[in-house]
């Protein structure tokens, strides 16, 4: 028979989880070179929502934890092709061109044009997964050997019991990319080209734009967007840049290693200190956790 039993209902567990969830605010960045274009991102991630379901197999099921990308800045660096004139054949022959006009380049962009897309709030994704509960005994590395528990409490290096949510598996689903992302990309491309050409005389801008063709179509070709920008963006962020893997890793690491959902000092305080009276502290041993359909049950013994 365990000395101590503490049980928290699913609702309580949800409340504790919500508190933990609300403390999550991480940032990450990444990038890559993909030939004719490069891409990088800076992202800040928060979490919202999420439903906890305690399971009879000693696990906690998490569903529909919303990921809020706040902000998500995607930077695309694009090589606009050189614009050259000439190069045409003057004297053709059945055996090839005998005389060819020289090619003269009148416009190039070096290095790339850069398009910054603010995708904050335009991408919806969710995390689901299961967690087991990990019990750990934490000894503060700053605590010298032989230090008493009361001294350790005063020096803020007490030992602790900690319970972590250890992810078994985590899935991230990309739910939606807002329709407006296409227009945003469009406008960003136009703005970038305007910035590039803006100082040229009007006729030269028109000519370069005409030679390049519709800028959006050109950039789309460079970026290899094809018909569906949402799918392209999903692949770029998810596969090429690994953004979603990064987010899953951040979430997993947060819950599994960095922030316990339950933590208390060992020995635990029973009576507060008084004038010339030490606090009364009681050691806790054999901490264990069981998850059922209804509740999380923590058991422990009072140490001798």
């Amino acid at each position, binding site marked *: 028979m*365990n000395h101590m*039993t503490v049980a928290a209902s699913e609702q309580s567990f949800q409340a504790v989880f919500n508190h933990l969830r609300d403390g999550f605010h991480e940032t990450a960045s990444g990038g890559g070179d993909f030939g004719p274009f490069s891409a990088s991102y800076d992202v800040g991630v928060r979490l919202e929502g999420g439903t906890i379901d305690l399971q009879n197999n000693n696990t906690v099921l998490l569903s529909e934890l919303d990921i809020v990308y706040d902000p998500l800045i995607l930077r695309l660096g694009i090589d606009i092709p050189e614009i050259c004139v000439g190069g045409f054949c003057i004297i053709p022959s059945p055996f090839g061109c005998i005389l060819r006009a020289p090619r003269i380049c009148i416009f190039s962009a070096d290095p790339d044009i850069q398009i910054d897309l603010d995708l904050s709030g335009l991408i919806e994704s969710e995390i689901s997964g299961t967690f087991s509960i990990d019990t750990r005994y934490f000894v503060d590395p700053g605590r010298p050997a032989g230090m008493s528990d009361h001294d350790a409490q005063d020096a803020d290096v007490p030992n602790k019991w900690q319970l972590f949510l250890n992810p078994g598996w985590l899935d991230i689903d990309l739910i939606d990319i807002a329709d407006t992302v296409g227009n945003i990309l469009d406008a960003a491309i136009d703005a970038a080209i305007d910035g590039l050409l803006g100082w040229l005389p009007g006729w030269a801008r028109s000519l370069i734009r005409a030679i390049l063709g519709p800028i959006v179509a050109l950039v789309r070709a460079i970026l290899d967007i094809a018909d569906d920008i949402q799918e392209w963006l999903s692949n770029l962020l998810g596969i090429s840049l690994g953004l979603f893997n990064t987010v899953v890793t951040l979430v997993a690491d947060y819950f599994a290693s960095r922030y316990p959902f*339950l933590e208390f000092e060992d020995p635990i305080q029973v009576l507060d200190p008084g004038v010339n009276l030490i606090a009364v502290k009681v050691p806790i041993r054999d901490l264990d956790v069981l998850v059922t359909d209804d509740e999380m049950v923590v058991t422990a013994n009072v140490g001798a």
Partner: protein
Amino acid sequence: MAFTNHCDVFGSLHEAGINRVVRHIMLQRPSLFNYGTRLFAQQPGLLCEKIEAHPEVEDRGNPILTVENPLPVPGTNGLYGFDFCVQIVKLEIDFHPGNVFALPPELNPPLQPQRLALRLTVCAAIVCPDDRGLEDIVKDLETRDRDDQRKDDEDGPRLPPTPLPRGKPACFCIDVFGVAQVTFDGPSGSERVCIKLMGLEIVDVRPDGLETSLECFLATTLRLAVLPRTKIPLDFLTLELGKYGSLALTPTPISANVPHNPAIEDDQLAVRLDLTVAP
């Protein structure tokens, strides 16, 4: 049936656990269980039972004994008093159903539901002065002039009394039993579980009046000195679950589903709490 069927958070402490907790309190707060005059504080070897204390108590200069004034010798106008000590050397708790120790008949066994039984061993002594010491005091009292005596009569007893000299403590120990219940105490959000003594019985002291007086003495000491300073915080009973998640835990109201809260049942003290999430 789930622990949290009718509440959000459940916490319980088995009687084996609470007895360990009591032991830790006795080691780390010995002055709560040991009382005596300055003589015993200065010469702890004279105590009836050696006080076991946690090393931190000595390291930090905490008292092992609560120092009290000597018991006045009646008729000396408070001039002289007995050195004495009172020690609770053992304290055991048995939750309903009582199965750790048997209650004396005076406490109407068996232990009733929602009750806990206490078994204490109390040792005490007064330091009885030797004859030579007394003779010196008699002489002192006789030599006090009439004016001093009139002044003593007018002013009343002066405190603290001077301890009677050169005596030896005459120790005795008695077994004491008690019955108590538990309630919540304290402001909302900072409730603690406190033990309310309902009855106390010393076994086999005669005459009955002496027994009753001693029981009163001990019960009053427990009620005023010991029990108010040993309330159990909810944070301890819930392993600080609410503290970490910024949850506000308050006792679940009494209802048909929760007829007792805190409850004593199945050899355990149990509390049921509802949570309010802090904004």
